[in-house]
């Protein structure tokens, strides 16, 4: 990977300060993201997977500066986005868009579909008022909605249709990079497939780069170029799609893959699952050393003491695991 990446994330850290207890008397820190580094190449789909609380959505939000980073850098066009104030950041927002999980609450209920899509175009001066209607219509067609939807209100649309509107609104900014934050998780199965196909078509048409955040591994396998697996705020493994699914290295990746159900009764009944014991520990008090060691089937003594190094086990296949690094597994 010699090409200059579209976006480079270096040692990104995000802590949230919260107050606990009935009267908020205890201050605590949520270690949401810890030392996350990755490059995003132009035109690729990089997916982040992991269980809830693993920091995959926080990564997306922090990259876009919707959460202020507590440390580390996000380099885009030679600028460190984490250091920009909101006013300067606004200049970059056009390029860097996001599609959220819940299409029901990310649209302003008082604005029509046309207004929602037109607003960013007018604000960023990407169109004149005279052309607005045509451009809005073109965007609606791009996302597979009839142009008459421009005069509709969000509450009149189904979940899948709303998500199409949200995608059209992101496209209205003519972005280079879109974070899809669980963009299909709230949708029904038959609608999910429609939206995935739409995202793929648009990627091809507009040469978009996606950071695809999801928990459904099967979906991720279908659309990704590379996949990163996160656990409790850290990257556990990052590899090209086929390498990750065919020869996963990290024990957590293996466990995740083995937990995914398949539409084959015979195989499902007979298959030996490697079921992880227990729950994900609290990010308020993450385990020392490798954060996975409390649930890891091959944990060694060193795992609870030192943080495993983030290193390339094979070219392009990065992993953070003592066992892999020392060749035990």
């Amino acid at each position, binding site marked *: 990977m010699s090409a200059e990446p579209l976006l480079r994330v270096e040692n990104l850290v995000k802590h949230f300060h919260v107050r606990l207890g009935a009267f908020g008397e205890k201050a605590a820190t949520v270690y949401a993201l810890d030392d996350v580094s990755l490059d995003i190449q132009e035109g690729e789909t990089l997916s982040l997977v992991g269980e809830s609380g693993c920091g995959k959505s926080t990564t997306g939000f922090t990259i876009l500066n919707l959460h202020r980073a507590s440390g580390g850098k996000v380099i885009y066009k030679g600028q460190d986005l984490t250091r920009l104030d909101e006013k300067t950041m606004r200049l970059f927002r056009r390029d860097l868009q996001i599609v959220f999980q819940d299409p029901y609450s990310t649209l302003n209920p008082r604005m029509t579909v046309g207004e929602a899509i037109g607003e960013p175009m007018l604000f960023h001066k990407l169109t004149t008022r005279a052309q607005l209607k045509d451009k809005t219509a073109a965007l609606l067609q791009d996302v597979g909605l009839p142009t008459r939807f421009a005069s509709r209100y969000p509450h009149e649309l189904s*979940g899948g249709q709303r998500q199409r509107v949200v995608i059209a609104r992101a496209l209205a900014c003519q972005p280079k990079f879109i974070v899809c934050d669980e963009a299909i998780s709230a949708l029904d199965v038959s609608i999910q497939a429609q939206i995935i196909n739409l995202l793929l078509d648009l990627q091809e048409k507009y040469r978009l780069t996606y950071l695809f955040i999801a928990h459904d*591994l099967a979906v991720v396998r279908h659309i990704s170029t590379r996949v990163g697996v996160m656990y409790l705020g850290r990257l556990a493994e990052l590899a090209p799609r086929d390498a990750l699914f065919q020869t996963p290295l990290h024990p957590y990746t293996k466990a995740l893959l083995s937990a995914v159900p398949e539409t084959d009764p015979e195989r499902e009944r007979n298959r030996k699952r490697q079921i992880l014991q227990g729950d994900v520990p609290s990010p308020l008090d993450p385990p020392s050393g490798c954060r996975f060691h409390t649930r890891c089937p091959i944990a060694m003594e060193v795992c609870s003491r030192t943080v495993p190094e983030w290193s390339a086990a094979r070219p392009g296949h990065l992993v953070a695991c003592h066992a892999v690094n020392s060749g035990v597994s």
Partner: protein
Amino acid sequence: MTARNAQERLLDVKGLTVEIDGRRGPAVIVDGIDLHVGKGETLGVVGESGCGKSLTMLSLMRLLPNKIKVTKGTAEFDGRDLHKMSTRELRKVRGGDIGFVFQDPMTSLNPVMRIGDQLCEPLIYHRKMAKADARKRAVELLRLVGIPGPEERLEAYPHELSGGMRQRVMIAIGLACDPKLLIADEPTTALDVTIQAQIVDLVKDLRNKLGMSVVWITHDLALIAGLADRVVVLYAGTVVEDAPVDDLYANPSHPYTRGLLASIPTLSDAPTARLSSIGGTPPEPGRRPAGCPFAPRCPLAMDICRREVPKLEPISSGGSHRAACFAVNKALKAA
């Protein structure tokens, strides 16, 4: 007649119709559903949101929200019609012979009551147990669902447990009175995959141990493949296909089932870029088209589909695999 058909039916729902008193007048949400569950059988009920799968189950317990009513049909449980029982009798069935596990363990547990008290409540109410015996049984139940340190957990409040643990507590409450039937309404939807795998294995294990029947409501066809004996597919308030689990996945017949299966990406098939998908969206209640509700989205739709409602008809020799589709039946007769 196969052995499965000869099986005694524990739950037998016939022609169940549920209507909502909506903005545009009454609208049918569940349209004459037939369902049955044999003793010891696990039935998967699959459908997308709004297909009526949850309302069907809530209607059995007469727990429907305001403005939603059962207008037709019978639901026999162990030979008695649930809809004709007095409220008193019904209360004995709820939480007694039929256990319920809801989707969201966060909101279905009472946040101000200790886990132990919530577990003991049905035991004291239904089984007339003394408090001390109920607590002993509660500890057993927590151990049964794999909660470590059950004695201490009795004193915990729901917010002190993780999502997976809470769902285990919900299952323990559902199992408290040795139900003959456990109805689980999307019990793993709010959980992560690794926790989902734990819960699925737990229920499989408990079913084999306790010999109860299970109805597992879900939108995830993959999830129940290894769990159910038989699967019923719902679309827009009607049963479109009903088949033994192996038949359904090996030989899906209704175009909706086929479309649904094709649109689920799996880890084993070749990762093609595009997924096959079903166009359009399911009809809203009250705006269902005349004829087959799937016709507007169906690639095989014929004229008759837009005029008449297809009936659920056997398509396999044993009659255990049934589908409601004119196109499938026509192809069958032609063959």
